[in-house]
């Protein structure tokens, strides 16, 4: 098991390394001088500008710039940001926890709801309820994130005033009592997390249903049924344990898409996370932030992937030798 984890970690490191090299080349293949506007916005004195450019090694040969780039990355220096009027890494560091909270909540909700729904459907396969939910989940899974988000925003926050219209906290948040503060955060988290969770739940439900239907006709399940185990226990105790495995794999593989969806949802709900920062950075042509967000996103996805792989290996020992 330990060797498996080690191998996966090394794999993850290789992935991140390739991604960073790719982003370096991306920057240098781009036309024009992306550095110029961010540097110029922070100092107008030509001598200062020249000194800054030298400090970033912008006039050195490519290989040397690459090495500098890597060392800077390792120390967490992403470069000057025009949007943040300072180091890009500070802006990102402030935004990352918000995205993690959003994605974590959405994933948890989506997983629980999706698995439960899929199991519920599998128990009634072929019935009208099953088919209705199947159609509904197909429709929901087809909705674009920003469209669903906007709909929820307009209805639940705009028309019915059940939730706030955006942001992570109220303007008076710091002056609230601790209890009020928690409620405030939850109220702001509700709609964006719900948007992502609905989409996840819909596709997880479909997948879980199919996986369960795969497992239910199996011999060991039939034996259990013959022994008189109730349908519900069958599904939840015996079948689900095996059918959960592909779902875990699915979750791990859909992390990049979830992060992509978070970009749109964060924009719609003005959630101060990495995705919104990246979108705002595009508006400002601020590439240190955008690249930083891409690399951090890749790292997060890789870590998530390793976690799900390890989970998979724990549940299904056959995987460890792959």
């Amino acid at each position: 098991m330990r060797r498996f984890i080690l191998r996966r970690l090394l794999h993850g490191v290789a992935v991140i390394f390739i991604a960073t090299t790719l982003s370096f080349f991306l920057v240098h293949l781009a036309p024009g001088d992306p550095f110029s506007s961010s540097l110029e916005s922070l100092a107008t004195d030509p001598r200062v500008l020249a000194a800054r450019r030298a400090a970033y090694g912008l006039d050195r040969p490519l290989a040397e710039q690459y090495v500098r780039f890597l060392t800077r990355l390792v120390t967490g220096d992403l470069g000057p940001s025009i949007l943040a009027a300072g180091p890009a890494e500070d802006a990102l560091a402030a935004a990352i926890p918000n995205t993690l909270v959003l994605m974590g909540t959405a994933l948890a909700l989506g997983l629980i709801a999706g698995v439960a729904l899929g199991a519920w459907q599998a128990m009634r396969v072929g019935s009208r309820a099953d088919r209705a939910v199947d159609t509904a989940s197909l429709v929901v899974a087809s909705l674009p994130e920003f469209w669903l988000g906007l709909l929820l925003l307009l209805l639940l926050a705009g028309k019915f005033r059940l939730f706030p219209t955006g942001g992570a906290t109220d303007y008076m948040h710091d002056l609230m009592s601790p209890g009020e503060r928690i409620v405030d955060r939850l109220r702001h988290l509700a709609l964006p997390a719900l948007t992502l969770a609905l989409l996840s739940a819909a596709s997880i439900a479909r997948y879980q249903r199919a996986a369960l239907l795969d497992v239910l006709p199996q011999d060991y399940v039939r034996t259990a049924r013959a022994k008189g185990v109730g349908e519900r226990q069958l599904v939840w105790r015996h079948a689900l344990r095996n059918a959960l495995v592909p779902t875990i794999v699915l979750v791990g593989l859909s992390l990049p898409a979830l992060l992509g969806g978070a970009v749109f949802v964060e924009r719609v709900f003005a959630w101060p996370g990495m995705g919104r920062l990246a979108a705002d950075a595009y508006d400002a042509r601020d590439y240190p932030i955008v690249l930083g967000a891409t690399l951090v996103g890749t790292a997060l996805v890789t870590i998530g992937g390793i976690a799900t792989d390890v989970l998979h290996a724990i549940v299904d020992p056959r995987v460890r030798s792959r």
Partner: protein
Amino acid sequence: MRPSIRLHAGTRLLACVLVSAAACDGRTPAAADADTVGGSLITAIQAEPRFLLPPLISLIDEQMVGDQIFEPLARMGDDGRLDRDFRPALADSWSWENDSTTIVFRLNPNARWHDGKAVRASDVRFTYDLCVDPVVGWKDREYFARIDSLTVRDSLTVAFWFRSRYPEQFFDAATRMLIVPEHVLASEPRATLQTSSFNRAPIGSGRFRLAKWTPNASIELVADTTHYRGRAKLDRVIFAVTPDANAVTARVASGELDVVAVSSPEHFRTLAARPELKAQILPAFDYTFLLFNTRARNQRSRPHPLFSDLALRRALTMALDRDLLVRGQFDSLAAVAIGPMTRAQALADSTIAGIPYDSSGAARLLDSLGWKLPAGKYVRERGAKPLAFSILVPSISRNRMGIAVRIQEALRPFGVDVSIDAIEPNAFFAKMRAGDFDVAFDGRKADLSVSGLKAYWTVASARQPNGQNFSRYENPIFDAHLDSAVGATDAATAKAHAKQAFSTIIADVPAVWVYEVRTVQMIHKRFRTAHVLPTAWWAGLADWSIPSNERIPRDRLGLKLAAR
């Protein structure tokens, strides 16, 4: 189905009623009434301030915050006169000497910085040095051109020495500079003030001080309770960064925002219908224009391939029906701009003939310039070069984006290919500074004095590498007329010279003057406004108050500070 007419009449009436109401509020003496002390005000700003160090302030959002934290020597009176009725701020008295070429200010001996140290004349001296230093790049440096020097007479007295007398002397010296603390900033290198931490943690002498800044979310100011001129009536003012106009409208409706600026007729209609809000409509001091870059992009030593040609600029102006553009976007909230001024300015003259809309004339002019439409194509060409350019627009301004789309469609039948380059405001300024644009959709607040134009349109400003004459427009005749207007000693002469200056620049078409828009504020009705200036509605926020029987729950939180 003509809602625009209703709006027009309604807003006129509203304007008369409310501007006079606002004026009334300003004239009643502020009673130090415990009943009126307290309350919170939350207002929306569009962009997050980047620099709060006064000489670096350039965005209007930065100005709103900076004007609360810092103070000038004196402030304008409520009538907005440039020559008298000033109110004491850091200086509590002043006098004239040497046949009015010297003004001596005496600082209030009780004035303190937010960190407790006393405000001294040396701070004023230090601020002056910063402001006139070209490395710092203060955008209003031009106004100090006629100040010869500043001397410190003693720890509480400064003297401004002018090269000559002129009507706006006092206004320039007393109100334009926000004083900063020398003891905090003296050690900072001037060339890198942009990266100073002072921008995020400013220390001023104003009646509000910075309590908490949540990046990209809000800036919270609280009243300085020991302020030498009396504490601000409100407990706190929160500037909420809300770039999206829809979010602003929704949050005002839900009570999260108290004061918002409205610039679209649809939003105005939605909010005007709400009973808890009142509208405050101020005369227009904001104008926008499409600035032509007369120099080549990224290569300022060479002329722009398209826009160095006056005739082409004229042709494009003639091709645009600006009245239709503006009315289509704004209903009646805005009017077509005449030039680098607004009608509310004292020296403005709306009788100056601009370039009229003439579509056939435009087409003929383009033809005569050699821009012909090849068979089967939609874009004119001259020697295989297409008549194509991009308009740089700050994406935050939905109005400018909307007008840009209308312009794109309006120029299409003329065979002109316009693309729109939407970019974030700070990046927008960076590109303009670098000269990296064809046409930039810029906007300015008209200054009360015409001398403000010197920073943007004179030969001297074009020659400055750091200057704000982004288009590099140069016309010595305009400079001469402007100088005469600025140096004139009586109003009639000033106005005559100003008219000539404006006529010159309008005929030169360095820009297409697009619209001037009224500032419309929707304010929660519980507020009693004070000292509202047409160019700065926020000027008197420290004296705004809420009667105690009209307060809402968050007004009663008191001065307790948030846990850091």
